[in-house]
């Protein structure tokens, strides 16, 4: 089907088009950025929000989920944002730097700008990049094509974000948290760019707090990891938001680079964490982990495309999903190995633990290998809690609920431990316990 017939727009699509028309003048960017925004909203009008007949969204029908689209959130009130920050801390007790994005906008006065500068980290409002000459060159899109519906929805409405650069050889001593805060209801749409110069090292935390109401959260992170640099990032999508949580990573890795990421989803109505990883230099390594927990009517989608375009790179993908109620878990992972990408080592595993009979897991690990001298493997399992293990724990006096918690933690901690960023372990385990206690 080439020339697609015009579609009948849904309420949400009509709302989005109206949102764009109303906000066109406030949305930042040079002329080429505006053109890209127009094209993106045109894509939503012509093809609709991503839906189940688009292969990548087969299991996560955003078009069916979004009944309407709320307006963009208003500019943040700094005091209100500060209150939300004080009320919610995803990693309490962890010594770290903080960068705040409130209602879609970078907030220098709430961020550790100076201490970071002293560590060789500079921060810029992403809108400055968009408003500069050739602003659109800052709009990365997945290598698989610019058409991804989530990224288009982002491009159209970017309110702001942060550009963070770590200087050559700089090793940032503390983890850096980029926290998105909603201090008022409404959609939050952000772009951020994380640049690591040669040999730089950064440990990143990405968190999202506050209530966006009916507004979707759509954040795209563009990671540029130069030769010899190391980026470890932990993304935490938690809380019982009723609107869509749409997260995208686009990582570009140089030579001898290391990229590690863990995407953690818990208790969110509709969450999609999609990651696109591109190897552009040799001898690099990507380790991608996912931990999802979903109950009730939740949907938790972890989607991943790793492109091995050059030889001698390793990737490891390890995803864990726990489902209860009528929840749906999705894992779509694809490793592409280009014809000349010899000596690629790729190993992908996805495992699901089903706590109820109505829960459903869609596991879709795929390998597309065009080189002959590679080592690639994938596996997928789905299972229930082992009654014999449960009985053993209970026979030692551990009540059933606590025994189940131990076993779920044991299941998930395999991925968290292999990720190996110890400063997040405690915080993540606490979020697992929270979810088990409350969902």
């Amino acid at each position: 089907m080439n020339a697609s017939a015009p579609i009948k727009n849904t309420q949400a699509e009509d709302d989005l088009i109206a949102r764009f028309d109303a906000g066109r003048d406030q949305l930042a960017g040079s002329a080429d950025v505006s053109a890209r925004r127009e094209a993106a909203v045109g894509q939503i009008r012509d093809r609709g929000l991503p839906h189940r007949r688009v292969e990548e969204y087969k299991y996560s029908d955003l078009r069916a989920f979004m009944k309407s689209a709320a307006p963009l959130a208003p500019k943040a009130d700094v005091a209100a944002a500060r209150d939300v920050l004080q009320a919610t801390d995803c990693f309490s007790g962890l010594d770290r730097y903080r960068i705040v994005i409130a209602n879609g906008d970078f907030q220098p006065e709430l961020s550790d700008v100076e201490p970071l500068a002293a560590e060789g980290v500079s921060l810029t409002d992403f809108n400055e990049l968009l408003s500069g000459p050739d602003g659109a060159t800052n709009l990365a899109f997945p290598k698989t094509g610019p058409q991804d519906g989530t990224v288009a929805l982002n491009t159209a409405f970017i309110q702001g974000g942060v550009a963070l650069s770590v200087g050559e050889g700089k090793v940032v001593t503390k983890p850096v948290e980029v926290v998105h805060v909603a201090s008022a209801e409404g959609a939050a749409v952000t772009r951020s760019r994380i640049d690591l110069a040669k040999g730089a090292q950064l440990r990143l935390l990405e968190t999202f707090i506050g209530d966006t109401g009916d507004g979707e959260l759509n954040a795209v992170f563009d990671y540029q990891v130069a030769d010899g640099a190391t980026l470890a990032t932990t993304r935490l999508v938690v809380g019982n938001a009723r609107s869509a949580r749409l997260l995208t990573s686009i990582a570009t890795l140089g030579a001898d680079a290391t990229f590690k990421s863990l995407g953690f989803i818990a208790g969110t109505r509709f969450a999609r964490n999609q990651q696109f990883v591109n190897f552009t230099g040799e001898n690099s390594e990507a380790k991608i982990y996912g931990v999802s927990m979903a109950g009730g009517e939740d949907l938790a989608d972890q989607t991943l495309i790793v492109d091995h375009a050059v030889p001698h790179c390793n990737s490891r993908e390890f995803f864990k999903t726990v489902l209860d109620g009528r929840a749906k878990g999705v894992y779509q992972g694809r490793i592409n190995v280009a014809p000349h990408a010899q000596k690629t080592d790729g190993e992908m595993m996805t495992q699901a633990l089903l706590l109820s009979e109505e829960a459903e897991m869609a596991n879709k690990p795929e390998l597309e290998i065009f080189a002959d001298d590679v080592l690639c493997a994938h596996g997928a399992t789905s299972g229930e809690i082992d009654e014999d293990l449960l009985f053993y724990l209970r026979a030692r006096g551990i009540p059933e609920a606590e025994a189940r918690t131990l076993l779920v933690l044991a299941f998930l901690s395999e991925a968290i431990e292999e990720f190996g960023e110890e400063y997040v372990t405690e915080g993540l385990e606490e979020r697992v316990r929270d979810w088990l206690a409350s969902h």
Partner: protein
Amino acid sequence: MLEIKNLHARIAEDETEILRGIDLTVKAGEVHAIMGPNGSGKSTLSYILAGKDDYEVTEGEILFNGVNLLELEPDERAAAGMFLAFQYPIEIPGVATMEFLKTAMNAQRKARGEDTLSIPDFMKRVKDAAAHLNVSMDMLKRPLNVGFSGGEKKRAEILQMSLLEPKLCVLDETDSGLDIDALRIVSDGVNKLRSPERAMVVITHYQRLLDHIVPDVVHVLSRGRIVKTGDKSLALELEKNGYADYVDAAA
């Protein structure tokens, strides 16, 4: 301490009857041995005592210190003082042994209305018990039973038993898979726990364990029934003549 009366039980799934009228009374301070051929229902009896729901009791009752045991959940039974040393201890990847011990000890204390153990107190108890049973700290750092040898698993069971200080210890073939030295260590560990307030049911296929843990009473279980009861000389007689007589007698 334990009164089993006319216990009939079957496998829940296919309704096969396994226990066919067991009567057994164990008083505080006593050690009872249950011997019997493979498949006679020894493990089934131990699982029913611990509360595994693969089995259905169709007749009879079990009183544990006067309480109807069958109405309690497995964890409630444990907190009330029931302990089963499993014939096949299970490996639980991802659950750290120390964390497990602490959780189990404190869960039982909580159920009994006692205070949580302080970390130093807990550590001291584990270290003392581990030293007696020749359990290395390295073993305790691993996930529960994961990668333990057969003998290590059995020692770990007795370690748990020592720490949980149960009132009734049921040991299901704790001797299987142990060499002579390990058998002595495990038996010493068990004997240390013998006391006038505590009872033990030692299930075994061979007489050899009973040289170390000397029983007050020996029962022969065959085809789901206790077919003979005697003193420790019964175990020696079985060792000499085998179970053939009893299998026929029960048929």
